[in-house]
């Protein structure tokens, strides 16, 4: 099961963060965020304070999963872009490298065309970063060099303390 665990290190995280900040500015968006396919929020940029990003992440992943289910029923591999238009805000959701979901929330200060264009560029950069992450976790796993691992000395007591 752990073969597919996602492990994020400082270096790659700041690269992702940088890419999202860039996208946020270039698209004139309200919020940009990145979610893994299982609904865990990875990173975000923009006006996130007013938004429940955890719930948004989980629902977005559910949305992508449901759409993927529909795609397969139709004999399509995947629908990689979803777009929802609202009265004020719009949301552009795209699947990147079949692994992570990039979400851009924007209003009339931006446009769908601009968002699509910039998302496409950012996606390529993000795919490269996620490939680096995969390579790195594979390497670290084999080399026993995870001395910083939070699990190394985890005790029953630590776990019990969580539930006090």
């Amino acid at each position, binding site marked *: *099961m*752990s073969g*597919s*665990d*996602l*492990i*994020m*290190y*400082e270096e790659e*995280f*700041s690269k992702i963060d940088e890419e999202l900040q860039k996208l946020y500015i270039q698209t004139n968006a309200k919020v940009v965020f990145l979610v*893994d*396919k*299982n*609904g*865990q929020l*990875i990173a975000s940029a923009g006006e996130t304070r007013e938004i*429940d990003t*955890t*719930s948004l992440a*989980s*629902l977005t992943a*559910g949305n992508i*999963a*449901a759409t*993927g*289910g529909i795609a397969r029923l139709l004999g399509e591999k995947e629908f990689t872009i979803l777009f929802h238009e609202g009265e004020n805000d719009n949301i552009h959701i795209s699947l990147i490298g079949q692994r992570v979901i990039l979400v851009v929330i924007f209003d009339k200060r931006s446009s769908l065309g601009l968002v699509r264009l910039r998302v496409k560029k950012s996606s390529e950069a993000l795919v490269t970063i996620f490939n680096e992450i995969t390579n790195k976790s594979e390497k670290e796993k084999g080399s026993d060099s*995870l001395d*910083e*691992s*939070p*699990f*190394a*000395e*985890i005790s*029953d007591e*630590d*776990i019990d*303390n*969580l*539930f006090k």
Partner: protein
Amino acid sequence: MSFINYSSREINCKIVYYGPGLCGKTTNLQYVYKKTNPDQKGKLISLATETERTLFFDFLPLALGDIKGFKVRFHLYTVPGQVFYAASRKLILKGVDGVVFVADSQIERMEANIESLEDLRINLAEQGYDLDKLPYTIQHNKRDLPNVAPVESMNKLLNPRNVPWFEGVAVTGPGVFETLKNVAKQVLIELKKHY
């Protein structure tokens, strides 16, 4: 599939509550939500029909505390129990780290329990998981009802491997946190094995 973030020092794990329709999966989450400190929980999201039957899933994020400086978060999900939502159920199991099977203790629901457990096994296998290798806890729910099957015979039927099990009354709370705590512990121990 857990998500370990060394940058923000967070560990995120996904636990799915599975079981036949009306067995009390959503009720389990509602009780956890009700009894958890506001600073430890996010919103309880329910994608349900007008009659409060789960349509897609319920979702409850819990941030329980720290282990070795890492914030530990559990994302609790339920699946829609009704048979015809099979396609949705499959999707929720993606990336699962631990499973709780909520069994309905009423005698007339035994067949539904067996069917749901079989469905769980098949759906996990489709995602490349083996129930026998996953952190897994069983809750015999609705023990307060008059027409319940004895726990021994339920275990014989649903729990041949004798995985950790608890009696529960999700509406009022007994067994709810015991179940969650047990599966969470198994998930963390499993992570410890790998990292």
